[in-house]
């Protein structure tokens, strides 16, 4: 009696083991889907304020449990809430040591001062600067994420931060006051 039980359970164990092995091989997914989901919620500024070299590495760190969800200033509080919802955690305030939530900005190159050293081009994570050696550089404003990574390498300090153009398209109706009671 006991013997048959042992035999049946062993056979079952072998069967499930084979099934799992098969599934592992044939339904294998490249990459981590959780990382993709986290990455989709990040603002893709690629600014590195979270201490990781871009949004994707930060997403990987969150998925691994290395980094907390409150290290992204450009994402701000709404970003933290979205991450908390995805990961089933409690939202928390932004970790100020990584920076403060601010208005959307872009940078602009003072083309009279620029010496054409290409250092900023190499620093830009999204290829938003055009120019060539000893030629004037300029920023493609529509592509600039406002990460400010181009500012420290500039030897002549000709890059300035300006607020992103707030035209009619960017204007939002104010949120109605919350109800009483």
């Amino acid at each position, binding site marked *: 009696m006991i013997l048959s039980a042992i035999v049946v359970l062993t056979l079952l164990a072998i069967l499930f083991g084979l099934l799992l092995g098969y599934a592992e091989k044939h339904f294998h997914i490249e990459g981590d889907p959780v990382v993709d989901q986290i990455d989709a919620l990040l603002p893709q500024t690629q600014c590195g304020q979270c201490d990781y070299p871009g949004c994707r590495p930060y997403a990987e760190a969150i998925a691994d449990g290395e980094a907390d969800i409150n290290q992204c200033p450009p994402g701000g509080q709404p970003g933290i809430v979205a991450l908390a919802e995805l990961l089933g955690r409690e939202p928390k305030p932004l970790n100020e040591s990584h920076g403060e939530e601010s208005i959307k900005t872009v940078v602009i190159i003072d083309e009279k001062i620029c010496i054409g050293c290409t250092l900023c081009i190499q620093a830009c994570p*999204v290829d938003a600067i055009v120019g060539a050696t000893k030629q004037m550089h300029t920023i493609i404003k529509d592509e600039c*994420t406002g990460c400010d990574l181009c500012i420290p390498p500039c030897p002549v300090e000709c890059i300035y931060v300006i607020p992103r153009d707030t035209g009619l398209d960017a204007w939002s109706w104010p949120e109605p006051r919350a109800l009483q009671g």
Partner: protein
Amino acid sequence: MNKLWRFNGGVKLSGFKSLSNAAGVKRPPLPKRLYLPLQQHIGAPAEALVEVGDKVYKGQLIAASSSFISAPVHASSSGTVVELKKHIIAHPSGIAEDCIVIETDGKDEWHSSISALSNPDALDLDELRSRISEAGVVGLGGAVFPSGAKLKPTRSIDTLVINGAECEPYITCDDRLMRTRPREIIRGLLLLRRLVNPTECIIAVEDNKPEAVQHLRRAIDELKSEGIGSVSTVRVVAVPTLFPAGGEKQLIKVLTGKAVPQRGLPYEVGVVCLNVGTTAAVYDAIYEGKPLISRLVTITGPNVKHAANYEVPIGTPVQHMLDIAGADDTGGGEQNRLIMGGPMMGHVLPNAQVPVVKATNCILVEPKADVVPTTAMPCIRCGSCADVCPMHLLPQQLYWHARGKAFDKLDHHNLADCIECGCCAVACPSKIPLVHYFRFAKTEKKEFDAKAIFADQSRVRMQIREARIAQRERELEERKAKRKADRLKKKKAKAAAAAASANASVDDQDQASNGVSV
């Protein structure tokens, strides 16, 4: 008599129209300065053609249309361009936008190119259409969609609807226009009829404007007796007064029983719909050669002394009109709240310095003392809002999701179909400012979507850059490896050659020594 249908919901409102519709159309004196925004229409802003210091004449083209959906801007009086700058415009945000500022010279001289056409009925259709576009004619009912783009339907049209319903309280500019210029409206309609070739034409007027209906019918009879046969296809229909009967989709439903598909346009059900003001502007553009440089504006309100309709040059500051209408004796506008449009769908103006634009049908002056601050109470889920919604939406559900900023749910409940008519807010027993929530949610959603698109774009650019850097590194590595291999090969070859030559010399020596020994 033809059958009329009805749309879902709607509310009955007090009209307050007698405040301003008793007096005839007045012409105000010219303001000192005109502020002409480059964007007064849906679509791309116009491009300025003048520079500071240029002398301009009335009707002169000063900013050109920049794409298919765009409209040009013309000088509304003669004078000098004194500034091209950002000036506060008639928008709830109070944002300043690009404007051409003209200092008027008081002569009001027409540009030399403006003259009446000798034979407008002989124009071919393309010429007609392009003249309408070039005259800067846009929908004057409030949507300011460039009319030229509407007049090239891609399917056959059954009904041409001219919208004179004017369902909002207080506004009477279309009423007054139909009473003073019925012939021009009908002749404009006949021009449009040539363009879209419908089987029937309807001018729809709410039945609270019997005088307008009378004037239009009389004008049709007159034109008929003058031998214009095509006018017999035109009917004037009085539609029941029920807000928002003047909404394009609601009016089409009432007149034809057809429902414009969700996110669709009227031409998809064989209807083209234009406002009476637009129709009169088409008449002016074709018969008189005059571009759209002025419009009728209702200046009204309980305390406005000369509440009436004024023919206002586009670009006139609202303050100038308030002074003329006696709306505001202290001059600062402090004690009044200004609404552009009607009380239902209009919006509060940031101040009185904004100019009148092509979309300005009414300036409603409300004493601030009369504006009772209402406290919104919690939603009791009574469903009154859904009963009155002319778009068959569920405002109550939209409200919850707007508060929670649940954008996917808002999409699911078709927030984009909301016409912001305000029926739900009127019906709400808890006085919740529902339309405000929907406007907020719409702009918020737009921003959310724009952010998502920008993030995707940045992600792709980052990935492309990383791939490029990785490839360059790989190539560098390969080249390095190749160089190293080449060097090694050369070294080996050299060594081999050296060894060979060393061997050879040894051989020589051997041979030499051998020779010596030999």
